[in-house]
């Protein structure tokens, strides 16, 4: 599984939404499934999948799928094909 697939799976499972719904534009609090509780589960899942420890600034900034990619890139996680 490549990093993009891992990322989509983490979002899909944490927010309990179909994989197809995980696009760059998906944003915190714009769907009922991505609320604060799901956000906490998502952070834990991303940390587990990519073996990183996010700091609070990153957790606050992680407001969309696109942002998640940018933030994880700072931890040397690449999403290029």
């Amino acid at each position, binding site marked *: 599984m490549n990093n993009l697939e891992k990322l989509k799976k983490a979002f899909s499972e944490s927010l309990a939404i179909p994989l197809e719904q995980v696009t760059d534009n998906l*944003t*915190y*609090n*714009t769907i009922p499934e991505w*609320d*604060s*509780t799901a*956000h*906490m589960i998502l*952070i834990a899942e991303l940390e587990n999948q990519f073996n*990183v*420890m*996010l*700091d*609070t*600034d990153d*957790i*606050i900034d992680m*407001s969309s799928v696109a942002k998640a990619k940018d933030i994880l890139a*700072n*931890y*040397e996680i690449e999403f290029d094909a």
Partner: protein
Amino acid sequence: MAETHTHHPELTGYQISLRPVSKDDLQQLKNWRNDPEISRFMLSQTKISDEQQTAWFNKICRDNSQQHYIIVYKDQDIGSLNIKSKIRAKSLLETPIIEPGLYIADPRYRNNILAFSPTLLINDYCFETLRCEKLVATVKSDNQAALNYNLKLGYQIVKQGELIEIALNFEDYQKCSKSLKALLSRSPRPVKKEQRN
């Protein structure tokens, strides 16, 4: 002589700080309060004049039953928060029931996990420093986002209606806020990341 600032402590935690309102904040507060995006979920939508606001500020400087703060994140003012004794004759140090109220004025942080930080900080202060027994709030029934937000923090619905009354005790707050607090308290930045940058 007219007061220029209020007399309660600045609070810091969960990445933000709560700065007591000073006279210098009044113009910004008036602009925020009169912004329809902010006032639409308030109980009153009446526009505030300069005179009304000056009178309000002079009152809160002398009133020990309420405290008003500016929410600050990364040196930027992003919103406003207040707490009031629910029992008018009692000060915040004496009252068993406190009513908090807040809005995030900066649209970048309205739909953001950071919006929990000021509430966590003031709730800790109310329960642990002011030693109140219960927090209460009133939410307009069409403000589902605010209702969900408060329920996540452990508030229970006390009365349904056009205005929904909710309440929170310390035990429920501790139970429901534990994970959020852990998430918003992480620091300092991990060494691993700094080494890579």
